[in-house]
């Protein structure tokens, strides 16, 4: 598999706000037009479009129509949350490499009708969730607080360790004008944050926003002639265990990354030590903790010290979530991590630029399901 025969050539996004009052279709169209403009392309160049969603109305069919296309060729709406973002990006690259499309737009949009932290309406629940949802257990913060508690029990990790992750992300968001949460966060403020679901406080949870992100891919050959330096997907891997049922995962001190990390590093010939940037999927602080260990940045139980010692920020070993992540830039379901990786690898991130950035790991997912992709400035020889 040589994903680097394709390249990301354009990035675009809307503002990230608490409540936009706009439809998903309108937000997506704005981000996509911006991404195409960034690439020096126009909607008429697009013959492929893909997104992931949990059933919202801004599908590739409607969105491609909204940006002026009379027809769309390759289009895929993957039913998924943040767990399959890397897969969606790899599929877009594959569509180009296999000649199914020449220019593919990948986007994700969230409007105020899509919120995952709370269930307010009357509901009937089927599938595997039919057993625990009736007991007041049916939203992701609850599932993953279970995992964090187990990690604390087995490895002695602490809430202060989770806080160190939130604080690091926030420190990066302070310098990011696009981020939704930019007030500096101290450990004291973190610990004063209200409990949501123990062991998670409010600062352990992603910040849900309205907004859209889009990326444009084309072939590596065509990319050379476009406006910005291309950014290449170097390799990707996916893995899901326990049938995707979080409570059934055998050891909740590790996540999908236990499967995906060896797969990704074997495919790319790279390792954690090679990464300049790590955009770690951070729906919750604990997601970063478990996956960071699994990808080999440090040993089990050492994440708190790693972050406190400044090894996860500028001047350290690897810059984790230079944009502030889902915790502080905003919950764009992880596609904003890919935007950030491209922005950094093009070296256009301004005051937030990671020096000499060559390689970025972007992870996607939490718990039993996820994937990851490595992007580079140079095409591997």
């Amino acid at each position, binding site marked *: 598999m040589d994903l680097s025969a394709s390249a990301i050539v354009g990035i675009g996004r809307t503002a990230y706000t608490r409540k936009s009052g706009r439809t998903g279709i309108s937000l997506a169209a704005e981000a996509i037009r911006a991404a195409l403009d960034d690439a020096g392309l126009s909607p008429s160049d697009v013959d492929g479009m893909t997104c992931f969603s949990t059933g919202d109305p801004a599908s590739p069919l409607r969105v491609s129509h909204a940006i002026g296309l009379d027809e769309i060729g390759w289009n895929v709406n993957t039913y998924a949350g943040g767990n399959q973002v890397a897969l969606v990006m790899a599929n877009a690259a594959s569509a180009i490499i296999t000649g199914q499309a020449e220019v593919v737009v990948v986007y994700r949009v969230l409007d105020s009708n899509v919120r995952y932290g709370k269930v307010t309406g009357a509901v009937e629940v089927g599938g595997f969730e039919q057993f625990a949802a009736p*007991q*007041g*257990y049916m939203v992701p913060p*609850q599932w993953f607080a279970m995992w964090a508690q187990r990690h604390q029990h087995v490895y002695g990790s602490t809430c202060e360790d989770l806080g160190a992750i939130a604080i690091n992300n926030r420190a990066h968001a302070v310098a990011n004008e696009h981020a939704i949460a930019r007030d500096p966060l101290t450990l004291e403020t973190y610990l004063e944050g209200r409990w949501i679901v123990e062991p998670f406080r409010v600062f352990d949870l992603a910040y849900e926003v309205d907004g859209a992100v889009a990326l444009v891919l084309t072939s590596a050959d065509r990319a050379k002639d476009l406006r910005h330096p291309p950014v290449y997907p170097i390799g990707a891997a996916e893995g899901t265990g326990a049938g995707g049922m979080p409570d059934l995962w055998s050891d909740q001190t590790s996540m999908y990354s236990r499967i995906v990390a060896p797969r990704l590093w074997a495919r790319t010939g790279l390792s954690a030590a090679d990464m300049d940037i790590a955009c770690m999927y951070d729906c919750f602080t604990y997601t970063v903790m478990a996956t960071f260990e699994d990808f080999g940045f440090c040993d089990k139980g050492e994440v708190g010290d790693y972050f406190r010692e400044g090894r996860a920020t500028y001047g350290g070993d690897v810059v984790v979530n230079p944009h502030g992540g889902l915790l502080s830039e905003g919950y764009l379901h992880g596609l904003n991590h890919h935007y950030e990786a491209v922005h950094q690898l093009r070296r256009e991130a301004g005051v937030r630029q990671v020096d000499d950035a060559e390689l970025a790991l972007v992870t996607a997912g939490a718990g039993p399901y996820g994937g990851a992709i490595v992007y580079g400035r140079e095409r591997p020889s």
Partner: protein
Amino acid sequence: MTTVDWSQLPPPQPLPDADSAGFWQATANGELRLCRCTNCGHWHHPPLEHCRRCAAPTAFEPVTGTGTIYTFIVQRQPAVVGYFDQVPYAVAIVELDQQPGLRLTGRVVDVDIDEVRIGMRVAARIEPLRGGEFQVPVFAPVAVV
């Protein structure tokens, strides 16, 4: 437009299917029965029509419902309909004694939530679910002899 008071709505109700019907029939009778392979004896939860190990048919069999808390949470912020006025409450993933990895998730009752611990021994008890005819298994601590 009528204002709906979400806090007065019942908890989510289960939607049984062909594979899970036996579970809900048992709880309706005040019993905990789980899905088990009629050939190799492997337990399955959630239930399956055929064993994922040997593909033989399964049937529902009674279990003691005793087990150990693998992990748990304490819900402090109202998050799920039907439980807005129930916070704080504890929910645990319980590893049942029948088989390693056989897990059932439910609320932990009859104990101060600050006393809930990983490794705590618990037993299932069947309770009515508000808002319908269903009954659900919850877990209460058992004295360790």
